[in-house]
């Protein structure tokens, strides 16, 4: 645990990417199996322990420290794990000897709700402040130390002199503590045999298009559907549905899994039936993102839900045709393979996103403008000769979104951020005026501003606080924020009856009096 705690501590303060990679690589080379595998899983966000909630940690701490002092400290520090690590009364000298990371992981994994508190307490007594921090971060699965999963994998690649793409390709087929991965990296072993597993392949992603496209003829255009990007993989009889974050979401969409009777791996947009976006002349109708959202994150799906919001997939691309990897082929060769592949799938659950017939740039611009009425998010541009490659590669795929909508809203509440922003009020709830002059919240944003603007907003919040509830402050209703958002829909979840899609702060309008901010009715009129 000492080596792992030291790694985390060093990563927190290391600013350069190269230094971070060196730290990770050094650790992965030096640490024993399976400790390093667990560490890699923790750094890539692949560990979670169901019976260790932060409420359990707070409960354990409240046995040792006055709850009010604990709460005041937590409010100041901005992070529960760090607060408890620092505040925990040390028992004289910390116990001699180290506890292995694997022992800690195995113990945490075996905890039940009843024995969790006593076990956590015993560990906290045994560790020093650094180890307590690492332990609590690990236990609550909140191990954010300013590195991405990608960086950790690059660290692995650097440690063993293999390519990071090869690591990515294997990654999702293996599970912690990644014994096969280390065997392959360390001992120059053979690649693990994955033929029998249905597993996630990294997505190809698009850059936003700024300005115009110089060589339009080299690209094909498709509509950008507003659902969630998914991948369906089938090997043998196993079918799995993955989100962009490689999360297995098969259980939330059983009808799609059951209907997929092809062999291979495809890429597409998961949508629900409805008539909110698109239309027959634009490649088929689909429900709004809001309608789809109700089906996300469900462990089981009710029959009523399957009937009221049936899901289907609009296919974009193909990665494997049967066992054959077609990713290296150009898009122009993959497209006919996809069309052939999709032709045998049931049309009730699968169709293919059409290629937009626009002979030149001007006609595409015109079509995209017209598509606003059909609520289409934008256009995708794919280079016809591009292979299917992981990540965002400049020049291959572009997303060309419609310009965002904007509204002038009044700041109502602010909440402290987390992590790096824990000392700033960085989450803002804003509202618009009703006909009878009341403010109702219409959304919440925590991005879009610069660091300087964040400082300014934080100062504003502190100087104009009306009341406080825990981490939230209610502020004087005097500051106008220009908010940009991709779309707005009616929603029963909010009192204003509105839900914004991806709202962000565009500008601080100190020049505008609050009374002149937009009215709810104006926003309602933007619902497409």
């Amino acid at each position: 645990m000492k080596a792992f705690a030291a790694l985390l501590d060093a990563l927190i303060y290391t600013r350069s990417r190269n230094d971070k990679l060196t730290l990770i690589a050094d650790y992965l080379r030096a640490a024993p199996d399976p400790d390093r595998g667990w560490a890699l899983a923790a750094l890539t966000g692949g560990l979670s322990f169901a019976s260790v909630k932060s409420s359990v940690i707070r409960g354990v701490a409240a046995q040792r420290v006055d709850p009010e002092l604990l709460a005041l400290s937590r409010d100041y520090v901005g992070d529960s794990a760090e607060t408890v690590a620092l505040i925990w009364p040390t028992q004289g000298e910390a116990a001699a000897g180290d506890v292995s990371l694997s022992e800690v992981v195995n113990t945490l994994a075996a905890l039940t709700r009843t024995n969790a508190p006593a076990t956590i307490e015993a560990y906290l007594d045994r560790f020093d402040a650094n180890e307590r921090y690492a332990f609590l971060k690990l236990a609550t699965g909140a191990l954010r130390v300013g590195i991405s999963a990608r960086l950790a994998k690059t660290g692995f690649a650097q440690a063993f002199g293999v390519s990071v793409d090869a690591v990515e390709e294997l990654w999702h087929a293996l599970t912690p503590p990644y014994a096969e991965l280390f065997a392959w990296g360390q001992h120059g072993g053979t690649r693990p045999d994955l033929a029998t597993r249905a597993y996630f392949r990294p997505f190809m992603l698009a850059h936003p298009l700024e300005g115009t496209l110089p060589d339009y003829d080299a690209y094909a255009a498709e509509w950008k559907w507003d659902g969630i990007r998914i991948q369906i993989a089938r090997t043998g009889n196993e079918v799995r549905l993955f989100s962009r974050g490689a999360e297995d979401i098969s259980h939330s969409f059983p009808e799609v899994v059951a209907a997929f009777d092809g062999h291979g791996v495809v890429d597409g947009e998961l949508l629900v039936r409805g008539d909110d976006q698109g239309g027959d002349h634009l490649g088929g109708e689909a429900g709004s993102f809001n309608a789809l959202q109700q089906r996300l994150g469900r462990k089981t799906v009710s029959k009523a839900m399957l009937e009221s919001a049936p899901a289907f997939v609009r296919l974009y691309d193909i990665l494997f045709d049967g066992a054959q990897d077609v990713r290296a082929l150009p898009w122009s060769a993959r497209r006919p393979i996809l069309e052939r592949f999709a032709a045998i799938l049931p049309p009730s659950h699968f169709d293919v996103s059409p290629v937009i017939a626009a002979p030149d740039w001007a006609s595409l611009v015109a079509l995209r403008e017209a598509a606003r009425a059909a609520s289409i998010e934008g256009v995708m541009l794919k280079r016809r000769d591009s292979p299917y490659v992981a990540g965002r590669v400049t020049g291959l795929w572009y997303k060309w979104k419609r310009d965002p909508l904007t509204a002038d809203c009044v700041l109502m509440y602010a909440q402290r951020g987390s992590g790096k922003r824990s000392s700033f009020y960085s989450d803002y709830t804003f509202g618009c005026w009703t006909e009878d002059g009341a403010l109702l919240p219409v959304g919440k944003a925590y991005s879009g501003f610069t660091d300087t603007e964040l400082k300014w907003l934080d100062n504003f919040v502190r100087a104009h606080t009306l009341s406080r509830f825990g981490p939230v402050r209610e502020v004087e209703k005097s500051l106008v924020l220009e908010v940009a958002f991709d779309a707005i829909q009616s929603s029963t979840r909010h009192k204003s009856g509105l839900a914004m899609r991806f709202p962000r702060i565009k500008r601080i309008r100190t020049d505008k009096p609050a009374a002149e901010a937009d009215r709810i009715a104006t926003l309602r009129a933007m619902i497409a």
Partner: protein
Amino acid sequence: MADWVHASPEGIYVAPADLWIDPSTPKPFAAITHGHADHARGGHGRVLATPETLDIMDLRYGASPATPMPYGAAIEQGGVAIGFHPAGHILGSAQISLTYRGERVVVTGDYKRRPDPTCALFTPVPCDILITEATFALPVFTHPPIEGEIARLLRAQAQFPGRAIIVGAYALGKAQRLIMELRRVGYVAPIYLHGAMEKMCELYERHGVALGALLPAAGNAGEKLAGQIIIAPPSALHDRWSRRFADPLLAVASGWMRIRQRARQKNIDLPLVISDHADWNELTQTITQLRPAETWITHGRTDALIRWCEMNQLRARALHLVGRDEEDAA
């Protein structure tokens, strides 16, 4: 209790003596605990302070009419006996005791209880009312022994011989303490100073604090100071000033460095938890030791210390003084 001492946002007012302690605006008669700018300001009529503090104020604001009050000295004004006692915070820092009609009030100013080679050790002064600071009054603040932090600094220096080590430290107090602690463990090499540090270091030398070999950092651009220790105000770390050195390693010496997120926001390589203020244990130790009938809290994290007093059946209240900006000096 002590209805002859009043707290106003501008400072503490002692009515029978018509005296202000650490006032934030010019007053005819002021007693100053120590030289930090949030306690000592220019423009007062007559000033009571230790000779060292007066010297620091002269350097910053020019000379003004003053009565030097060495530690242990006392004078009487309007029936109030005013005494000065070591606070252990920086050179010349004092607690001020006020005794009137048999009742004693002690104003700690900023203080710490651990030994510091640049100033006299804190002495607890029994009192009826303790007016204390609370800069680090949260139980998460326990400052580690300074020896460990100095060792971490020297380890970083050994590990990165090609990089100049710039330590951000407040120019008055923290910088000199850091230098003396380095000397104490046998570090004899010259220590390089940002221009803003030089005058204050000379002043410390004049008061008998032998800082050893000090050289100006200016004029040593590029790799000339690789492997050397440079001390600069924290504000210079991310300023154009520090860019003159090739690949510098940035450290900050402050009690706030105890909190990871705080340290991370400073965007530095090496946080050193070194503070000239009492930590949670020292603050509560002092109150436990003195057991004053009441504790008044001037600035800092007042809520937690009041809560702690409540839990220990001690009376306490917050004074909400303004303009006490402890961020960099801590």
